[in-house]
């Protein structure tokens, strides 16, 4: 079963990340790299991707005279997707375990960020017997 693990944050949270020390950022990235390596090793890794800054986000609603209607103003409280992991795992419990590891990735001073990770199943249709 495929699951997507979504890491989201507000614009304020992203601005805060920019103030992390270089060392803290490197430690954080090393932890994420190690999780990705483990998932590749277990054959559960499908994809991971980081998204560019919320400042570059646009929302598009329909079109007017063939021109897309774009807007770049978002409510302060809006949660932006920062990045995601797609994993192919045996069950939901395993997806939660991986999300928990990602959540425990170190932040400033090496303390776990405990970031909430949203876990969602792909809406693919699989035989009921499985």
């Amino acid at each position, binding site marked *: 079963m495929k699951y997507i693990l979504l890491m989201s944050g507000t614009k304020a949270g992203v601005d805060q990340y920019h103030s992390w020390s270089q060392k803290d950022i490197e430690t954080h990235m090393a932890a994420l790299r190690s999780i990705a390596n483990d998932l590749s090793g277990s054959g559960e890794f499908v994809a991971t991707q*980081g998204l560019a800054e919320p400042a570059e986000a646009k*929302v*598009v609603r*329909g079109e007017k005279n063939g021109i897309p209607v774009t807007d770049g103003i978002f409510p302060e409280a809006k949660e932006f997707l920062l990045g995601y992991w797609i994993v192919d795992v045996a069950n939901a419990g395993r997806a939660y375990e991986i999300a928990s590891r990602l959540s425990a990735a170190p932040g400033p001073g090496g303390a776990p960020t405990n970031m909430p990770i949203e876990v969602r199943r*792909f809406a693919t249709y699989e035989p009921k017997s499985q």
Partner: protein
Amino acid sequence: MKYILMMNTMRAGQGVLQWPQKDLRAHIAFMIGLNKELRESGELVSAEGLAFPDQAKLVRAGKDGVPITDGVFPESKEFLAGYWIVDVDSPERAYAVAAKASAAPGPGGTPLNMPIEVRPVMSGPPPEML
């Protein structure tokens, strides 16, 4: 340049299940047609639909490594319903594709004009994450 086009809905997005069968079919046929067009133009990287929000969990790392899961979300939370990743020549082309997806037919065949969030995807995960 890679962009992700995100279709977000409130929990009420499950109202789609109450649409008349005919309208639902027309909506899905539109989406299949859009994906086919993007595949033929070589712009489609991936497209996925996510299972309904009632199956979503929020996971945080527990102290002893046991995942803490929570399935309670604020009423106002936006859920990712599905996404497209496209590889296009310009942001304008990404907006044009988003506008098209936004105008997918809803009940009675009226364009939904739903908001589609458009974000640049980092050209690849940072090398230190691989």
